[in-house]
């Protein structure tokens, strides 16, 4: 028995899209160190499409895997689709998370939403 699915372990061990986008036009950070999880999402959006996405995460295995999976799920996608991304979809794509780790997928959804908001705000300025 392993605490995590193979998928989670794969994304934890080889996280996709790790890092920073210097010219990101949407940045979101959620969580706090007190609770042990912080996720930061960098989006580069062009023509209402996520051209590039990167993340930085301080957190447990499922937090890192959720970030990684979430970035994969939105990369190259139109914003209309990105806005529909739910934490459940992230968790499912990871073949599930332990109950008490579901909040990690919530963080991933929130981090993306927060980055999108930042993008909208910048656009409207």
């Amino acid at each position, binding site marked *: 028995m392993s605490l995590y699915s193979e998928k989670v372990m794969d994304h934890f061990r080889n996280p996709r899209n790790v890092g920073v986008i210097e010219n990101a036009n949407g940045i979101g950070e959620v969580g706090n160190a007190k*609770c042990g999880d*912080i996720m930061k999402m960098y989006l580069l959006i062009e023509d209402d499409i996520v051209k590039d996405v990167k993340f930085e*995460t301080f*957190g447990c295995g499922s937090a890192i895997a959720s970030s990684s999976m979430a970035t994969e799920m939105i990369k190259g996608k139109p914003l209309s689709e990105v806005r529909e991304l739910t934490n459940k979809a992230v968790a499912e794509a990871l073949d599930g998370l332990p109950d008490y780790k579901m909040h990690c997928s919530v963080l991933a959804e929130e981090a993306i939403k927060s980055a999108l908001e930042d993008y909208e705000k910048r656009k409207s300025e």
Partner: protein
Amino acid sequence: MIYADNAATTKMSDAAIEAMTACMKENYGNPSSLYGIGQKAKEALEGARDEIVKAIHAENFREIIFTSGGSEADNQAIRSAAELGRTAGKMHIVSTAFEHHAVLHTLKKLEKEGFEITLLDVHENGLVRPEEVEAAIREDTCLVTIMYANNEIGTIQPIREIGAVCRAKNVIFHTDAVQAVGHISVDVVRDNIDMLSASAHKFHGPKGCGFLYVKKGIKISSLIEGGAQERGKRAGTENVPGIVATAVALKDAVANLDKNAEITVKKRDRLIEGLKEIPHSAINGDEKMRLPGNVNFCFEGIEGESLLLLLDDKGIQASSGSACTSGSLDPSHVLLAIGRVHDVAHGSLRLTINEETTDEEVEFMIRSVKEVVEYLRSFSPIWRDLTEGKKQFIL
């Protein structure tokens, strides 16, 4: 595999496994059966008890009650003293903020029943101060319960001095010695101990076995009611094979204690030295007054669970005080008790080694932890903020 989680549990010694298996096969009688095979089991049981008496320097076989482990022993000791206290109208208990949950949760329950609990500060170095114990004892104090050595940060308490304070004040002194027995010298007489809890699986004995020492003259009440086993103080058919194996393991541990401690301390100190080279890290608990095999660090900017997972990938089994490893929201109450703030406490690592850990393993652990910490920091948003000066380093 490098097993560096000996504070969580130990591998049973071959001698203990053998003694246990032999007993299961040949000496399966019920010690309460008065004849034949039952008496043979009783003999094994009492022989084991005598070994325990010797190992902790008790005075009499009647002072040892076998239990199902450290938690049960802690519960029974504290509940018994509370019972006596209630009868005498003394409803105050002194303990510390970093006790094991078997102690803290029992105290919490007693609090609901009307007891008043004083939890002493354990300071930055994780050491209780005898003079603060003395100051905390009141007219209505019925018990002082302070662990011999902490299970997370390994700090060894000045038990003898604390015991002396309790004796002088005529208050029952219990110590949770689960991490100490078999690892450092424990002498219930020298240390002025009235009650002591121990658990076999922490000293290469079997799981599900432990014992409670109760100094002659102290009235103990039973937690588990029923048959007259353990002189009426602990009901239930005795786990003779487990008890026999406990005695074998403890005898060996005590016989080799000094030798093993010397070897282990050297390796521990090298491990500490190596990990200290990691920038913005700090050792948890006093560096010298600690268990021979205990190493515990906080690394700023990373989280413990992901650290453990990656060490596991390298074959290193360790533990952490991170909230994520326990399924709770808060990090280790022990780390909080020594003043670590939440974010730093999440980034803790405990490596508990023993005399069998090789020098190569020590060096491999140092290298591995360095690598993994560096890697995790490379994409930690907190680390970025710290290095970019947006946040102040704590460590």
